[in-house]
């Protein structure tokens, strides 16, 4: 279970990294996938990505794939804890989007 401290928003980079790892990918693959998903808007810096991967592995939100040892490029996959964090984030984003649309977009019409 995630600690109670972790009710806050995920960063855009973290959410996109987690989404990229529903199927196994290595670092460079994550960078390319995030850029593709966001239509080139989010370009992860390699240093930022490296730090984020290490933090997410420490938190057990993602894990290195077994058997990837022979391969020099380490691949990662999202864990159930990571998926739970994504689910929680979706709820938060939906609430935000619902409120923002109701108030701001309604006013535009």
């Amino acid at each position, binding site marked *: 279970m995630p600690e109670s401290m972790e009710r806050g928003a995920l960063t855009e980079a973290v959410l996109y990294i987690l989404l990229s790892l529903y199927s196994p990918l290595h670092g*460079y693959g994550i960078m390319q996938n995030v850029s593709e998903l966001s239509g080139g808007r989010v*370009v992860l*810096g390699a240093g930022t990505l490296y730090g984020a991967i290490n933090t997410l592995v420490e938190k057990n939100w993602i894990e290195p794939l077994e058997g990837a040892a022979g391969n020099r490029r380490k691949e990662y996959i999202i864990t159930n804890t990571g998926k739970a964090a994504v689910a929680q984030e979706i709820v938060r984003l939906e609430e935000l989007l619902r409120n923002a649309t109701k108030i701001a977009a309604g006013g535009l019409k």
Partner: protein
Amino acid sequence: MRHIVWKAYMNHEKEEKWLNEMSAKGMALVGYSWCRYVFEDSPKAEYTYRIELLKDLPGNAESRAYLQFLQQTGIEHVASYLRWVYLRKKRAEGQFDLYSDADSKISHYKRILYLWIPIMLLNLMAFISNGLHVLDDILHHGRVFGGNLICIVLNGFFAFLILWMIIVYLRKVQKLRAEKRIHE
């Protein structure tokens, strides 16, 4: 052909900018040791250069794992000096920034600050202690010893130069923190 340029930088971002200007002119950095830059002819603007201060020396296992990770994303480790590394990526392979969010930029700037602050304090302490010596010489012995004066000037010069650099980096951190209050 190889070109050697002697130059000193304290601000790594200005240094980075200069390396990229050199690269645009067709001079690609291939080596660096204390103030000595080695360039090789290359097609114009073939590479983007970045400079980073690692957490540990490049030979350390953590650093090697990181540099290997960078290599897998198309980033080449060109040279090192103490914990500083000079990195480059082919421009054709896309944009090259090491850090894409405020937090990782801030932690890099902090690493640089922690490198400079002790050096500044050492120089400042030497400046003050030498200064007191000279004052003592003048006030109690009525003489001025030239050797101490040179030390004072040098220590004072470096202390304030580094202090100025520290302020430059602190301002960068402050600016990012202000930005972070609004944007991620």
